[in-house]
């Protein structure tokens, strides 16, 4: 009897969303151990770390696009801003890592709020290209503003100092991987809380009909600004993580191509899906390095990973326009058919 009760408690806990996020994070934390044991190439840790960083940025865009229906093509610019602020403060101004990360979140957010003001006047495609305009302004600034960004050749930083210990080359990947997992899980939980609360409902209403939402007392200005602020804060955080993980940032990274890739993550993963965003990031940023480059014969051809990824993206959009999270529910119904036929009636 008692056993069953504890079992019940456990299954209830496991069903709680936040516990699931934590379990997901714990599972990810096992990967460095697998790498250390030699099951997985340790180079994959860097690829997967990159995937998690882009997942954080995409989570912000998912808040913006999925919940409030506003499209931004400026993600790359803001992420770049995050890298440069974090890198400059840490390596040139000798400030602690924590300060550099906070600044890398706050400064892009401030710019993002300004862009949010623009979004009150325009929407849809016009907004997307207006944000592209902002991103291009930022990118050109990275190229020209030598003293801050290092110009075309970029900005390099040393190994970050975390919790009073300077990371060495050996421990760096493992420790930073865990830090990235913590950041990703934190962002997933934060996003979950934000969209399950009043903010989420207000954004839903806005996406459905701005006029109706306004009539219901939703302050459009306030919520659009909040949505933009959150999206850029996430992008800034992703930038800061990128700078401390990859330790090198240069203007050619932060182009329209990256913004489109992050948009692809959101659409492929499925709008308004938190796990989907992570999965989408894995498809867009992980598949080329993790899978395609390991297939014999074709891996030596230049550009082959691009082609495969491009085709993969097109195929997913053509057959699963709602995102690959749909694939799983489809598989579930497919698997459940022989058994669940009677139950469904």
């Amino acid at each position, binding site marked *: 009897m008692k056993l069953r009760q504890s079992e019940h408690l456990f299954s209830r806990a496991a069903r709680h969303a936040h516990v699931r996020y934590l379990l997901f994070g714990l599972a990810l934390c096992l990967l460095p151990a697998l790498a250390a044991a030699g099951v997985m190439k340790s180079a994959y840790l860097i690829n997967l770390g990159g995937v998690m960083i882009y997942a954080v940025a995409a989570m912000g865009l998912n808040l913006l*696009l999925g919940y409030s229906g506003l*499209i931004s093509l400026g993600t790359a610019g803001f992420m770049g801003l995050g890298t440069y602020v974090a890198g400059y403060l840490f390596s040139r101004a000798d400030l602690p890592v924590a300060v550099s990360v906070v600044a890398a979140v706050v400064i892009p957010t401030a710019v993002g709020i300004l862009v949010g003001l*623009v979004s009150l*006047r*325009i929407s849809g*495609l*016009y907004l*997307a*290209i*207006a944000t*592209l*305009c*902002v991103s*291009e*302004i930022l990118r*050109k*600034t990275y190229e*020209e503003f030598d003293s801050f960004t290092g110009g075309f050749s970029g900005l390099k930083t040393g190994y970050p100092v975390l919790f009073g210990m300077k990371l060495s080359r050996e421990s760096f990947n493992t420790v930073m991987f865990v830090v990235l997992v913590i950041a990703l899980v934190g962002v997933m939980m934060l996003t979950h809380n934000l969209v399950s609360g009043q903010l989420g409902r207000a954004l839903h209403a806005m996406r459905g*009909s*701005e*006029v*109706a939402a306004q009539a219901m007392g939703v302050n459009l200005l306030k919520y659009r600004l909040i949505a933009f602020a959150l999206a850029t804060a996430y992008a800034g955080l992703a930038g800061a993580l990128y700078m401390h993980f990859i330790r090198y940032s240069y203007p050619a990274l932060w*182009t*329209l*191509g990256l913004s*489109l*890739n992050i*948009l*692809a993550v959101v*659409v*492929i993963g499925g709008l308004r899906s938190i796990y989907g965003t992570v999965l989408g990031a894995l498809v867009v940023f992980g598949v080329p390095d993790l899978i395609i480059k390991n297939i014999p014969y074709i891996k030596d*051809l*230049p*550009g*082959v*990973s*691009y*082609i*495969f*990824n*491009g*085709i*993969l*993206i*097109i195929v997913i*959009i*053509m057959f699963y*326009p709602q995102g690959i999270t749909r694939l799983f529910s489809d598989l579930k119904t497919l698997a459940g058919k022989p058994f669940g036929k009677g139950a469904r009636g």
Partner: protein
Amino acid sequence: MGTLLQLLLRSLETGGIYALAALGIIIIYRTSNITHFAQGAMGMFNAFVVTMLFTRFGLPLWLCTLGGMGTAVLSGFAVDLIIVRHTKKVSPVAKQIITLGLIMVFVGITPMLFGVDPLRLPRFIETGAVALGGASISYNGILNIALGVGIMLALFYVLQNTKLGLAIRTTASNEYTARLMGVPTRRVTLFAWALAAALGCLSGVMIAPVTSVTVNLMDSVQVNALIACVLGGFQTFYGPVLGAYLIGVGNNLLTYYVSSVWGGQILYLLILLFIVFRPQGLVGKKMVKKV
């Protein structure tokens, strides 16, 4: 005075390159309801075809360009037949991601077929310049300006005064009704993709001599063409063309007279401000949303 004229002439040249690409984007947008982010990538691919024909087979450049436009038409056909035609049920945002997938495919195929080394493509007319009121312009510049303006005028004539143009305009205004009226919208869309690809190829060939032929050849053209579409408004065909020439002129004037470092940023900032105060673009009509 001479400098100003010189700047304006050069702006007409770059503006024409942006305008050709922008016209491709707007035609695709109006007929297929897709923001064509791969316009630059497809132009880049076909510019590589031109370069290859030129360097490997030593054909005259105009013939190579025609060949490149031929492959451009084929690639446009392929994109529409294999992909775009089957995406009727896909949401507008997801459709944009399809063009992202196209970028990846073309950026991937290019080094596979043509190698990873940057190539050079000469100008149509290598030497010779003409003095014009204190400014000097190369014969090639004149040719580019004439080609840009000529193609634009020819296309607008076709759009306004022929049956094909009428079919395109009807499809652009409402595809469903157009189909009910007996307009072969599928063929119109197919033609639009081929036309857009050919225009992209031409703008690629025009910009190639300025830099070298790499996979990044069309990056700035793509961005400027998209911004030109917003500046001009998506509702008309001539708006984006106007926007493209304005960006060309604005960029040259600002970088010369204001700041060579910050000119580009100032231009984009001004465009941004302009969009805020006139969201529908230069010549667009304001859409009223019904509840």
